[in-house]
């Protein structure tokens, strides 16, 4: 059998069911790999005791009657955005320093109920605001891919999840995606990441960034693993009124690999000026692979694409400014030292100035501005109108019979940590140009690794599906994955 940490969820599940290994053995191998991977800075709160207890319980179940648990004994990393009972959960922010939730998020509870093992919490951009994992209070995460002397970003905001899965520190990880935070890092490290339809997965117990856009999803080593893990994460939750009361289908059963007759749209607006020729070529190759598999490739138009990022940078900060109002130094986390004569307003202002990093402060203030009296209509309402048009663009092409849309996942391969330090914040925001439309329209999207650029860094393609059709989307992604045959792994240097 291959090295235990390199197993996919599906391989580990089969090996565990056949009795070829134990969850404890896989878990110990992962804990060892995490110990040796400090240089990546992916895991920030390790939970080896919880992991060993859960692994032993999984092994006991395996011998008994409960062998059908979907994720029994599978060791996972959990993004720091998820509240985990009694375990630090601070959204990579100083303002939640010391916070240990008294409750478990619905997603992690469901994963545990499905038999999973938690290895620890994963680094991320502060409050999921960032595209390079450089805004974290824990410091930068490093991409396990290295092609020269530079330390590269794993992308963000789920950078710790991406780095940990790509480096085989865990079998899979949870991520969250508000504008591309699962798909962009997945593309930067050569793994598969799925953002489900808005409402497919409960947001309860996930630290909120922009509630109308946030959605949790799996980050895995294969499309099949995404299907298995999504099944465990998804479902209606009475504690999240926006979670859909729809049956959760067997996503893995949808993976037939047969996409004959499917209509795949290629949106002309995603052909951005200045796009690297390698990405253009990868995109064309991806379309050819799907055509060879029997799909029909059609040119489509999503005319409001250009306005997605500006609309996002009104709506997401507006919602963030409201959501982050709860960090006031009273209920949990950090409270600033006060000076003689300071009142409650000074306490709030100092606490938030010390507790929030620069990018979070910037977005909270932009959000405050666009919601303030006199600007609400001009900015916030206008952005919500444009959002309605962006969603309609997708509805129109789906009404024309398009089953899925193929685009590049990112406008470039991973860049060096620190390289964007002096750039305008807007330059960093452009990382999400291909992914953000999907959040605004509430659709499912998946990033599939499809090749290497000439430096030897992974590149991903994105498939966008119809709402609630994750099964069909995963099947198209499965076909693309099989045709692309991406098997490269980063060479270990850490």
């Amino acid at each position: 059998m291959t090295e235990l940490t390199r197993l996919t969820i599906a391989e580990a599940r089969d090996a565990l069911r056949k009795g070829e290994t134990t969850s404890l053995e896989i878990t110990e191998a992962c804990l060892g790999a995490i110990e040796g991977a400090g240089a990546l800075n992916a895991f920030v709160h390790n939970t080896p005791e919880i992991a060993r207890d859960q692994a032993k319980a999984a092994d006991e179940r395996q011998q008994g009657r409960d062998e059908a648990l979907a994720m029994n004994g599978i060791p996972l990393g959990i993004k720091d955005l998820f509240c985990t009972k009694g375990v630090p959960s601070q959204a990579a922010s100083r303002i939640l320093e010391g916070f240990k939730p008294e409750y478990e998020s619905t997603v992690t509870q469901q994963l545990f109920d499905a038999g999973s093992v938690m290895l620890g919490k994963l680094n991320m951009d502060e409050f999921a605001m960032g595209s390079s994992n450089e805004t974290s209070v824990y410091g930068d995460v490093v991409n396990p891919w290295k092609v020269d002397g530079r330390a590269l970003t794993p992308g963000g905001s789920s950078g710790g999840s991406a780095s940990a899965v790509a480096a085989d520190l865990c079998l899979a990880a949870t991520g969250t995606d508000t504008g591309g935070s699962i798909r962009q890092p997945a593309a930067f490290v050569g793994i598969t990441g799925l953002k489900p339809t808005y409402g497919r997965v409960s947001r309860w117990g996930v630290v909120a960034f922009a509630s109308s856009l946030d959605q949790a999803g799996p980050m895995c080593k294969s499309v099949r693993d995404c299907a298995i893990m999504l099944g465990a994460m998804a479902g209606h939750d009475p504690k999240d009124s926006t979670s859909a009361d729809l049956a959760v289908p067997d996503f893995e059963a949808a993976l037939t690999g047969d996409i004959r007759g499917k209509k795949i749209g290629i949106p002309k607006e995603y052909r951005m000026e200045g796009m690297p020729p390698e990405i253009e070529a990868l995109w064309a190759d991806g379309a050819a692979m799907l055509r060879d598999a029997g799909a029909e490739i059609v040119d489509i138009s999503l005319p409001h694409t250009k306005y997605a990022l500006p609309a996002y940078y009104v709506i997401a900060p507006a919602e963030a400014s409201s959501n982050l109002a709860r960090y006031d130094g009273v209920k949990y986390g950090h409270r600033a030292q006060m000076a003689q004569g300071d009142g409650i307003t000074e306490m709030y202002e100092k606490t938030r100035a010390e507790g929030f990093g620069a990018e979070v402060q910037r977005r909270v203030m932009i959000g405050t501005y666009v919601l303030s009296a006199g600007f609400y209509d001009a900015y916030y309402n206008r952005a919500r109108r444009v959002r309605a048009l962006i969603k309609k663009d997708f509805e129109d092409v789906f009404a024309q019979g398009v089953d899925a849309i193929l685009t590049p996942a990112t406008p470039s391969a991973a860049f060096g940590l620190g390289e964007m330090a002096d750039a305008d914040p807007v330059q960093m925001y452009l990382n999400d140009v291909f992914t953000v439309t999907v959040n605004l329209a509430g659709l499912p999207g998946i990033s599939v690794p499809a090749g290497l650029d000439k430096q030897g860094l992974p590149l991903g393609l994105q498939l966008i599906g119809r709402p609630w059709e994750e099964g069909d989307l995963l099947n198209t992604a499965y076909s693309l994955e099989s045709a692309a045959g991406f098997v490269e792994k980063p060479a270990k240097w850490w």
Partner: protein
Amino acid sequence: MSIDDKTAAHVAKLARIKVEEDALPALAQEFNNILGFIEQLNEVDVEGVEPMVSVTPMRLKRRADEVTDGGMPERILANAPDAREGFFAVPKVVE
């Protein structure tokens, strides 16, 4: 629309984030860059388009209006930076 130092200070106040006086010009410049990017939205014809309220066309689930949880003040206060006698403690609010 251009944001000056005074507006930046006002926004910081509304957001309850302390910004030092000498940091205001840079902050105002950042706001202007981001708002300049957002201004593109003015090119879009939104006549007759309703602002989106919910991305999925579904009615929010409702439940009976009854107590389902509670009676755990210690757990509620467990993470407070300052809690006394079953309450969150803050500086004096009312004179």
